[in-house]
């Protein structure tokens, strides 16, 4: 079923919406949650929470990109669950991925300067649009979906070292880009 049809089901308050969403996007959502939680039971609970959140959100929203809408909710719920879990259960891959982003932080004097997340999202999106499709996919798969570098190497037919280098270069470029934007 096409995404607009699934969204229509939500608007009609038909419970088939959940069934169709589950049939089409369960794998993707579980991938997002598993990357963060590394615990199938936790991930499935997050999945149920996600379906409930989507059910509540549509209507009044009509997402243009349903998979992104789902993943965003799933990711937020999973990250919250991750925060609540004990430290030893935290997924080192997520921590590692977030640590890598340190290199992107511009070296401004005012380190406390607050940035509006939406505006920053717009700037980062703009940066990513200037990259090759494959590069930005890899970037987001690493820092948005928290995919391990080994998985990226496998999925994109590259060596792990090549993935590391690509991400290293992109982090440097993002830092420069953010500095040019005055951040």
């Amino acid at each position: 079923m096409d995404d607009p049809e699934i969204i229509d089901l939500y608007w009609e308050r038909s419970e088939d919406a959940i069934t169709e969403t589950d049939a089409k996007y369960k794998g993707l959502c579980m991938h997002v949650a598993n990357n963060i939680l590394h615990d199938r039971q936790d991930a499935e609970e997050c999945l149920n929470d996600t379906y409930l959140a989507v059910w509540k959100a549509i209507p009044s929203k009509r997402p243009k990109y349903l998979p992104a809408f789902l993943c965003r909710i799933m990711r937020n719920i999973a990250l919250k669950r991750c925060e609540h879990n004990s430290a030893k259960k935290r997924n080192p891959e997520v921590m590692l991925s977030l640590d890598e982003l340190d290199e992107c932080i511009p070296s401004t004097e005012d380190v406390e300067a607050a940035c509006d997340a939406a505006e920053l999202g717009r700037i980062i999106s703009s940066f990513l649009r200037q990259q090759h499709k494959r590069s930005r996919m890899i970037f987001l798969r690493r820092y948005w979906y928290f995919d391990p570098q080994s998985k990226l190497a496998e999925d994109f037919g590259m060596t792990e070292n090549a993935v590391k280098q690509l991400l290293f270069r992109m982090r440097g470029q993002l830092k420069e880009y953010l500095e040019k934007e005055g951040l």
Partner: protein
Amino acid sequence: MKKDDLTKGIDAVDDDLIAEAAGREPKMKYSTKVKLIRILTGAAAVAAMVATGFLLKASLGKPPKSSDPAAIVTEGKGSGDPEAVTEPGTDTVTSAVTSRAEEYVTYAKTTTKAGTKTVTGVTTVTKAVTMPDTDEPVTTTVPWTEERPFIYNGREQTFYPPMKDYTYPGDTSITNVQFGTAVLRDRGVWVNCSFDQADCILNGISAFQNADEIEDIGFDGGGFCVKVFYDDGTSREYELFGTLGLYYLKDQDGSIKRMKDTSGAENELVWYLQGEFVKIDPYITAFFEEKYGG
């Protein structure tokens, strides 16, 4: 900015990019079967392109003359004389039939030299001429756009005359065509070209640069070699090596050139190779191979 800000910023990346990243990118590695198919189809394509190359050479042996009523440049910098196509601008080609107008445009794309004046950093035709095959005169506009200059060894390069007048090294005759694609195979990258000479210079650079895999081959403390194959069975190797900020290019004859643009050694290598390509032939198959790891 704090790290939290950055992570929130990444969280807020546009939905279409998130959805795109969720999509599946085709793997760049191929099964043996696929490889075999690619080799076979590649061979067929090369054969077809070789034939096309000969036809093109035959048809483009000389430029369309303005005296030929079938293809006349009625407006623009090439007015009255197709050989005057030397500068970016807009030419209007009037032709009775499609083929002659296209021949003019192809010629304009291929050549950049007129008389003693050699033009650098010119131009690519961005809009193909499509004209009905009719006996009635038809007018079409050929837009030119200025592109980046072609720079090699720190100076602007001129385009060379059509390849049939130039041989390098020796009397190699290269008709191996297929470009614009870069395919990662194991630890190497095949890059092929099917553009005509002008496009090879201008678009070929993009083709190389757009091949992520080339960037992905490590430079830090490593290097890689590029092998150019000629259809007479000979080949020539170039080798790029060095460490961060200092790169050298070793030619097959053993000569070593220092890369000047240390921040963009990949680009300089591309330009260097393009310089070599221009000398020999626009039709090149190059194999980028990781030499030392990176």
